[in-house]
């Protein structure tokens, strides 16, 4: 859904659903996934509706993913790191 408009000097790789994705140093996980064409980030607990980032500033929680085994991480707030394993969240119970 998004493309880079300048040259990328520090690429790194991580995994989304087991698939290799290229990102760059300084990206949040959400930015990297949007650039990598990830599709939905999670499904809602109530109706399993697909969701993807809405605000990208930590408010809406529609970017929740599982990162390195930890659920409910805000992809828009977590910097991506080389080798990170990110998974979609299939509608977990609410955290509040």
């Amino acid at each position: 859904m998004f493309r880079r408009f300048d040259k990328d000097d520090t690429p790194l790789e991580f995994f989304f659903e087991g698939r290799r994705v290229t990102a760059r140093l300084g990206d949040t996980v959400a930015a990297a996934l949007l650039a990598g064409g990830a599709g939905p980030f999670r499904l809602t607990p109530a109706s399993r509706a697909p969701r993807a980032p809405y605000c990208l500033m930590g408010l809406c929680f529609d970017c929740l993913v599982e990162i390195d085994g930890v659920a409910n991480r805000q992809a828009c707030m977590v910097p991506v790191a080389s080798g990170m394993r990110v998974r979609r969240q299939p509608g977990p119970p609410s955290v509040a």
Partner: protein
Amino acid sequence: MSGACLLAEHGAQILVLDEQPAPGGQIYRAVERVATQGRTALDRLGGEYAAGVALAARFRASGCAYWPGSTVWQVTPERSVWVSRNGRSVHLRADVILLATGAMERPVPVPGWTLPGVMTVGAVQILLKSAALLPSVPFVLAGSGPLPLLVAQQCLAAGARPAAFLDTGSPSNMFAAMRHLPGALGLPARRMLAKGLALRAALRRSGVRVFRNVRDMRIEGDHAAEAIRFRSGRAEHRVEAQLVALHDGVIPSQQITRLVGCAHVWDARQRCFRPQLDDWGNSSVEGVMVAGDAAGIGGAASAALAGRLAAFEALRLLGRIDAAQRDKWAAADRRAMRAERAVRPLLERMFPPRPEILCPADDVVVCRCEEVTAGALRQAVAQGCQGPNQAKSFLRCGMGPCQGRLCGPVVTEVIAAARGQTIEETGYFRIRPPLKPVTLGEIALLET
């Protein structure tokens, strides 16, 4: 940042906590990184953005302690602060706390706004500033006020052309606002109006399709956004877009000021709650101050001034200067603040939020987390639900992971209208810690 610089430069012991990985806040987000890519990269984002370079440098040189990547998740009236950083939580105590958590974009609940591919205009800008990302699919910017125009310009400068620009402002508001022109015509106001006109002219020149007086937006798509349908003038239109960016002004982020227990007042002109403050930014809770857009929307220049005014007062609270000294040092900033403030009534009248998003139709989802519609909320009111906090037990509304950040303002409006009450009578969600989810392990490991 401005307040912190001043405090550090006067020798106060200060710690700045920010969730972002680098200095800049919203307006100057990622400014240091963009600056390393040279002048063109900065210029693409506009002249105001470049002003952040000097501020960030001053902040770095000020000598204040700075913890980037730190999320504050609890603040008590006794001025205890809990902050999560690198997966660990730390407990701190302070003599004075200055909350400067900024603004959020007003939620825009329209049919289809929960579909993947629907974002805020600010979100598109965040990708542009911090990740050099541009839309690569047909996209639409929809909204009113300065931000959509600015982001349209930033996209065009970087090489992406919106399929359409949907101006949701209403011409009658523009005319009504003109009555406030005389009062507003100081230098800041003239600068602001000139900037707005220049952005509009640039958009016209670009040849992007612009629809005016847009109403009844509806985003279509089964699993993701595919198109947006709307009315403009008398005609109905449909524009294909896999990315739809919405905006309807900004409101103070009230999560943290509510959490501490600061008293809030309803600002009828800005149509939002804001913390009740004195002229220096002191809230109703002793030693807890608020500055910037979190205190009420004033824009970047006034946020910097408010930060400085609060810093002078903090020096007094800390016993470093007396009131006379504070007043003397603050006099120039106070005058500048008055000039900045004069322009707000004009802006507020030009771009009031649209009624259809304040109080959306029955089928529109209000609480994104728990998927509660405005209709369900009205039904709950009919069954005896008396306010936002009861709506939680009726519908789980506001109890999902976002803790009511996105539904709170709408829930209050919908319940107030349904019960025939004022907004003040209706009130707002009670906010409880933690502000952001922290794992039990993190709490167990708490370093104090």
